[in-house]
């Protein structure tokens, strides 16, 4: 085991991919000389050279499109967006091209492209810079969307993404790059489409991903004080969803709370609500509780942003109210 940050585990995964496979190259704004807006690729240019670490102009639509093109003929581009908010500039390429090409060509084309993007609110960046479009992208057939909350998961998922033949969005929780955890020195992968039970418990199932997981870990500690033993599930993949893990946990606990730090309206949680409704409503002792951010643009002001973002108290209050505890 080695203790490292999420940032370091992503670096490890990217280095590994570059070293193991000559068709892998990295591309994005300021990833080379500058070392990346969040310093993920710091030092990579010196290590791998400018053919494999390509700085691009501020042309998201076109460099993502170019990544798609290169992927269709055998390269494995790993493209970085400076922020998930900027994916909007490239949405046409991501959705109409990357996601649809295989289907439209009757299976002739594959697009083994990875798009990495820091995501999430909470840093007072205001309306244009705080959005989490991984939830929109999760409803696009042809794309896979993954995310993580620990260094070990970040590395294991990245390894699977590199081996996958499909376009993959990696939504990297920007507030968690510094989170530390143990990473196995043995080679392992984490399959795309598998959620994880972060903590086991018998009384309630708490489900989230990314920035929501640290909130759930704190929530669990609070619930222990009132003798409630919560199970925490980290989705890790937003598409395809691992409903098996959620249903299994609900059968055990009979209660469920879903937490999303992005906007509650739309998003991934309503889909999970509907599937729980179909699959395991009979096992529930009360309503499916869903907690998320307010349906407003993201404000700059700290108090307003904090007020919008869900916290431990919001989760506990919603849970206690719904289950009369």
């Amino acid at each position, binding site marked *: 085991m080695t203790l490292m940050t999420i940032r370091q585990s992503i670096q490890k995964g990217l280095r590994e991919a570059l070293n193991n496979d000559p068709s892998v190259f990295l591309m994005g704004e300021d990833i080379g000389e500058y070392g990346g807006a969040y310093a993920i690729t710091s030092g990579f240019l010196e290590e791998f050279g400018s053919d494999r670490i390509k700085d691009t102009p501020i*042309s998201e639509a076109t460099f993502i499109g170019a990544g798609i093109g290169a992927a269709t003929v055998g390269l494995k581009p790993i493209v970085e967006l400076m922020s998930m908010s900027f994916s909007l*500039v490239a949405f046409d390429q991501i959705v109409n091209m990357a996601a649809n090409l295989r289907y439209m060509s009757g299976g002739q084309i594959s697009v083994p492209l990875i798009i990495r993007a820091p995501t999430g609110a909470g840093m*007072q960046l205001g309306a*244009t810079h705080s959005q989490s479009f991984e939830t929109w992208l999760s409803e696009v057939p042809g794309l896979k969307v993954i995310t993580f909350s620990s260094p070990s998961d970040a590395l294991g998922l990245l390894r699977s993404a590199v081996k996958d033949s499909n376009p993959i969005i990696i939504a990297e929780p920007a507030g968690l790059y510094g989170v530390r955890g143990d990473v196995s020195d043995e080679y392992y992968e984490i399959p795309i489409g598998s959620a994880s039970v972060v903590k086991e418990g018998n009384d309630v199932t708490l489900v989230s991903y990314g920035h929501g997981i640290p909130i759930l870990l704190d929530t669990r500690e609070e619930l222990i004080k009132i003798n409630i033993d919560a199970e925490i599930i980290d989705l890790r993949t937003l598409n395809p969803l691992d409903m098996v893990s959620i249903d299994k946990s609900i059968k055990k606990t009979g209660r469920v709370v879903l937490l999303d730090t992005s906007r509650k309206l739309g998003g991934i949680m309503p889909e999970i609500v509907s599937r729980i409704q179909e699959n395991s409503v009979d096992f529930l002792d009360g309503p499916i509780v869903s907690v998320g951010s307010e349906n*407003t643009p993201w*404000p700059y*002001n700290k*108090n307003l942003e904090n007020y919008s973002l869900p916290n431990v108290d919001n989760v506990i209050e919603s849970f206690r109210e719904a289950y009369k505890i």
Partner: protein
Amino acid sequence: MDKSNLSKKELFNLLQKMILIREFEESCGENYAKGFIRGFLHLYIGEEAIAVGSISALREEDYVVTHYRDHGHALARDLDTNSVMAELFGKSTGVSKGKGGSMHLFDVKKHFMGGHAIVGAQLPLALGIALACKYKKENSVVLVFFGDGAVSQGTFHETLNLASLWELPVLFFLENNLYGMGSHVENTRAEGRDIHSSAESYGIHAEIVDGMNVLEVLDITKKSLDSIRNNSRPILIEAKTFRFSGHSMADPAKYRSQDELNYWLKRDPIESFEKYLVDENICTQDELKKIKDQVQDEISKAVEYAIKSPEPSLEDLKKDIYA
């Protein structure tokens, strides 16, 4: 610097505004370090002559649209110093009620149509405002600022094409400070350092100006505005400039050499203008000091105002979403 036929008062105004912007930005840096200002903060230090020279040439009915490095443009357009500072402090008395922050300053009454933080996104907005001005037969011009980095967005090329095709009153003002974040323009633009050439391919007349010289910026802007009002054809001005600090507070600017920085520091737009005013006997050292004292006083008051202003109330979160 060129001789100008401006009155002493006009020259003093230019200097006063540039110093106001400089001191404002330095105060922002300090208040960021203190934690009063958060999020992304992009300073305009070094580029003051552009905002002041160009915006001073505008009429009240003209419009300003700009990017996220917008404090200088806002102050040059006479947005209230207190309210701009309060915005950066996230207060309800801020120009955008504390909801926008540094990158999203707005004052519609002053025809200041925003700081915009998605690179290149402000260009179509400016085009549309110009379209409306022409449609309504107003004689306004839209002055839109953008950086060398924005030239690589499709919106730049699409906007230039339409502005030319539809003959719209837009003055495109390119602040070429040689870097978009850490990327040198020679590594991002096929045409190299001189970006104006891409304007010409859309049939748009382009001018190059020394962005460190406020009188030259003023002069070329006046001529361009006259031409746009008379001929209803857009014009692009490319100003050569440099930001003296990093891209944002998070950037130590390691990608630039000290020599390069020194080259530009020697061309400090404020110092060189002060020297010109003193050498030409337009201004005495005492008068300079008086301007600086006044500005410093204005900034201290703005900070005090921002600190004392109330936070937005929690209900404000859900206001201003729909009209």
